[in-house]
């Protein structure tokens, strides 16, 4: 997991964070250094620069009374006004974390003297997103993987270790881990494509793929299954086909009924589906295939 990390400390949000900690240091009148461990969307922003969250999830390595009025008004690069504020309700024990997360924290120099700020490592940050696993959590994990800061294998290993001593609704957590690892793997597979393998996202390409659907019956495996589902959908819905539903049915049939390899199935759909022309859609297809191939056993 050791890799060099470039932190984005020059953005408007990061500068707001620096001001926030400076303000906090002044209000607390600290006489000795205190370690602060940063999690949440702000930590993701420092790693990736592509998430805008203004609440700061921070764990303090000392008992302190947090003032309630610590905030910094900022103007983002796009002109949007925001407020960076300390989330005084944040509690790291309510999420999921590896017991070893403090061994992996990464220092970040924001120029604040007595608050020594560390970021959760990328993999621990990703794991901390799994208990809730809302849309922004999924996006954060995908962004960390996309930046090459976490691999699907690392995520799986640390998440399963953390889940082994997690107290809570573990069955849902198992689904979340499975889904997040599938998402991470899908991002890795998409990133591994060469530029020639990425189709143009154009109406002409979509029309060409629709025109080619009848010929899929001459192929085997997932391509054939997709062709059959697509033909039925075109008869039923005409121009209003729900391609995601067609893709989902084809993936399910190919993997759950015929036992085909998940990556082969996803490759076939990415190659033939008229809707698989965007990166997000191909990642969804690859992730869905990975999820179908890895069912979660229900808790007893």
């Amino acid at each position, binding site marked *: 997991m050791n890799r060099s990390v470039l932190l984005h400390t020059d953005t408007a949000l990061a500068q707001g964070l620096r001001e926030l900690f400076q303000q906090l240091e002044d209000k607390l009148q600290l006489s000795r250094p205190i370690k602060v461990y940063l999690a949440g*969307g702000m930590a993701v922003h420092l790693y990736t620069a592509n998430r805008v*969250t*203004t*609440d700061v999830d921070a764990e303090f390595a000392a008992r302190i009374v947090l003032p309630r009025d610590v*905030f910094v008004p900022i103007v983002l690069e796009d002109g*949007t006004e925001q*407020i960076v504020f300390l989330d005084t309700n944040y509690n790291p024990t309510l999420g999921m974390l590896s017991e070893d997360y403090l061994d992996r924290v990464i220092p970040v120099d924001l120029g604040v003297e007595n608050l020594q700020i560390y970021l959760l490592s990328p993999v621990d940050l990703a794991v901390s997103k799994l208990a809730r696993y809302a849309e*922004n959590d999924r996006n954060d994990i995908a962004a960390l993987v996309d930046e090459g800061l976490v691999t699907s294998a690392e995520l799986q290993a640390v998440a399963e270790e953390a889940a082994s001593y997690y107290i809570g609704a573990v069955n849902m957590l198992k689904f979340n881990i499975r889904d997040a690892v599938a998402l991470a793997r899908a991002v890795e597979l998409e990133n591994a494509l060469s530029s020639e393998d990425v189709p143009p996202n154009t109406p002409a390409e979509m029309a060409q793929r629709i025109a080619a659907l009848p010929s899929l019956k001459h192929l085997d495996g997932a391509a054939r299954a997709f062709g059959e589902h697509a033909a039925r959908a075109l008869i039923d819905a005409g121009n209003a086909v729900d391609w995601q539903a067609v893709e989902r049915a084809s993936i399910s049939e190919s993997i759950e009924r015929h036992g085909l390899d998940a990556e082969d199935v996803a490759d076939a759909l990415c190659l033939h589906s008229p809707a698989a022309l965007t990166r997000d859609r191909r990642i969804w297809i690859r992730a869905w295939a990975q999820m179908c191939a890895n069912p979660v056993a229900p808790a007893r």
Partner: protein
Amino acid sequence: MDARVLEADLIARCRAVVAGTADARDARDANTFLLASMVLHSRLPQASHRLKETSDAYFSMHPSERVAVQEALNRGWVESLPRLRDMLTVHLTHAVG
């Protein structure tokens, strides 16, 4: 009115704005809607957008009534930004039409 009644009223007002059935009546409404839009920006972008639009509409007519965040807190319009975010997240998650 005690703090909980005021908070319940604020949440109800925000819900009505997000549902498209209310506008800002006064400076208090407009400033708190603006704060609410900021704290919800990453969690509920659609709700945040509606609150910002409503606030902007009021300030376009009454530009001098906008106050700084600190002033809104000092006046007791909002007790705590994290609490405002958490309460609105709970109450507005399914409110966007």
